[in-house]
């Protein structure tokens, strides 16, 4: 049959993930870790797992940022151990491979969540953020932590909890609720909690849709990270809106602030030239010349506890809702503006001084919105194209639909 080998016009994203980590992960999947798991081996697995996560967390909590290779080694070591727990959970094919879209967004397969833990700087920023937030809480009182859509490893929290266990702190006043809709993720979580020997910190592990969750205890700390780059695809926003009603008076949310800004740049410059000599993407390696070529259009949306309280939801179709966001203006007098594409970038303040900047993580890589065509008509129009001219004002809405993301409209 015909084979259409063509070049896609899609912009290829620079890789955030460390190459060695990726190779290691692939190696794991290939070998399926032939290790036989008798009781002795299981005990030694638990010890090795606990030890590796303690070491990792200690490294993450050091104030000066460790060398990247050192971090990568620690992550790689932890990842091997985590994958052992995953193996022990013995998922069936459905638990491992099913992926689906529901009313609020994408639910990726457990297999595809296995390496989210390798997103080094995201994990670092969240662990540090949660640690500072917990250090500010009154340790004599119970703190209910809810981590919805946490995936099979709940990687933004569980390494820290293992660290607390080793230090003998925070028990019995932390009560952690972990939720995931994938039965396979919940199976792995339970295995992991036992392997880490941290059951005493766990209030509940629930296999359910976050949108159906009605907690028994008010939420004191909400750890929420269910988005893909450009704040798209997954139900982060819907989850935040639903859970906000259960927050205690002093509740904190991690990340404290999630800010989305719009900018114009040439796709080739932003996504190709900027990274061609780099092994991986990170805000450390931004090219100042290319950054200066950006035309910044401003913040279109931010999510904090404050904005969450005042959010205006507009009904949209039968099941969905829209959130009104800000408006930006496409500048005039830029001669080759038709060569520029609109991009959305997410910047995250996890907590206090902890941040996650553009390109530090898969979730903070800017994303081009190819549907917005500035001063040109696409050769192959798509149904959702938005043709705009320089000088036009673009008003954004956030769609809380099964395919969440921003919807630009002409104001």
């Amino acid at each position, binding site marked *: 049959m015909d*084979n259409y*080998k*063509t070049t*896609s016009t899609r912009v290829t994203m620079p890789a955030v993930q460390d190459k060695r980590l990726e190779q290691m992960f692939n190696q794991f999947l290939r070998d399926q870790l032939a290790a036989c798991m008798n009781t002795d081996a299981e005990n030694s697995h638990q010890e090795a797992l606990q030890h590796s996560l303690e070491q990792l967390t200690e490294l993450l909590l050091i104030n000066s940022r460790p060398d990247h290779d050192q971090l990568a080694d620690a992550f790689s070591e932890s990842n091997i151990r985590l994958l052992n727990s995953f193996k022990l959970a013995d998922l069936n094919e459905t638990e491992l491979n099913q992926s*689906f*879209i529901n009313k609020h967004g994408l639910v990726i397969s457990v297999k595809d969540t296995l390496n989210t833990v390798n997103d080094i700087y995201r994990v670092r920023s969240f662990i540090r953020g949660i640690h500072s937030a917990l250090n500010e809480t009154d340790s004599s009182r119970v703190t209910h932590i809810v981590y919805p859509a946490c995936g099979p490893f709940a990687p933004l929290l569980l390494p820290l909890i293992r660290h607390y266990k080793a230090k003998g702190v925070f028990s019995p006043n932390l009560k952690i609720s972990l939720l995931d809709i994938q039965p396979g993720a919940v199976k792995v979580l339970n295995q992991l909690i036992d392997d880490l020997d941290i059951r005493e910190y766990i209030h509940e592990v629930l296999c359910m849709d976050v949108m159906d969750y009605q907690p028994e205890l008010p939420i004191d700390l909400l750890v929420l990270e269910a988005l893909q780059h450009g704040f798209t695809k997954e139900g982060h926003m819907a989850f935040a809106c639903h859970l906000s009603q259960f927050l205690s008076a002093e509740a904190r949310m991690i990340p404290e602030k999630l800010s989305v800004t719009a900018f114009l740049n040439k796709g080739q410059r932003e996504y190709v030239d900027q990274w061609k000599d780099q092994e991986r993407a990170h805000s450390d390696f931004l090219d100042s010349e290319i950054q200066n070529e950006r035309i910044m259009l401003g913040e279109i949306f931010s999510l904090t506890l404050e904005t969450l309280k005042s959010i205006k939801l507009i009904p949209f*179709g039968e*099941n969905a809702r829209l959130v009104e966001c800000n408006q930006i203006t496409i500048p005039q007098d830029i001669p080759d503006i038709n060569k520029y594409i609109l991009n959305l970038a997410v910047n995250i303040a996890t907590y206090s001084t902890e941040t996650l900047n553009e390109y530090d993580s898969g979730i903070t890589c800017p994303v081009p919105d*190819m549907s917005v065509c500035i001063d040109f008509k696409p050769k*192959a129009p798509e149904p959702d194209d938005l043709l705009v001219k320089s000088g036009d004002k673009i008003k954004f809405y956030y769609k809380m639909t099964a395919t969440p993301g921003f919807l630009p409209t002409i104001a």
Partner: protein
Amino acid sequence: MNISNIIVITTGMESINLISLLHSKQLVKGVVIPGAWGHIQHHLNEQLRAAGIPCFPYGKDNINQTLQSLQDISPDLGLMFFCSEKLDSDIYRIPGQGVINIHASPLPEYRGAQPIYWQIRNGETRTALTAHIVDSSLDTGPVVAQKLVEIDPYDTHHCVLGRMSEILPSLIDEIIDKAADGFIDRRPQTDQCSNLAPRINQDDLHIDWSNITSEALCNQVRAGSPHLGGAHLFLGQSVAQLLQASASDISNFDTPPGTIVRVSPGEGLIVALKEGCIRLDIVANSEGVFDGYRYACLYDFKAGMQFHKSPLLNQQGH
């Protein structure tokens, strides 16, 4: 009059059984294979010659010679079936009772080269095999005999073709009987024809995700199965043939048509349409034939990805 000299006009191997049948009754005096010969026509020629049936090419270079040979045979009747070539009218005048074409539709509906494809694609539930006298334009001559054929909901193109082939011998018997009377009960066709059956091009095999209903897509796939590879799937650089699809009652949650809504061993590969969803049951490419789930696993397709209508080649954006 007694019909004993028949010539057959055909281009397809499918006609071989029928020719043998006529030959066993010692009715065939020759087979005309019109047009430029490809390997099928050469093969047909060899088979017929081996059985002692004379074959005549009817292309640019040998028209006159063939017409002369046919005149020498002085046939009573011409029978045209499985013939993809349009001939000029000289040949039709040679047999005493004319040439009868057998067309796979209830004429005047679905005139054209691909009647079975378009009838299945349009969701028809019954059709007919129609024998008509060949006149100067395509599929328009008076009808001399007709046999009804059911189209079942799961029928593919070749299921219907097979069913038609089964009843073809009895239709031919009827034609021969009627030829003896000079086709007195011939029935002219009306000009009322609401559907045509044109040749199929590549675009006809693409899936118009943004508009198609699940029923229409299932029909499109059946119509093209197996000979055209059903309907064609495009995702990223990957191209595949969709050989069977079924309606699914999983909600599409208003996701854009073409979006993969679910991948799982139990439920398979489910894709959003404008209304509802479709399950991609059987998919084939140069590497094998797969159920939807396995196809998705092999090519790393997961929920959220979107099939497009045509190959990426035609989809230049910026």
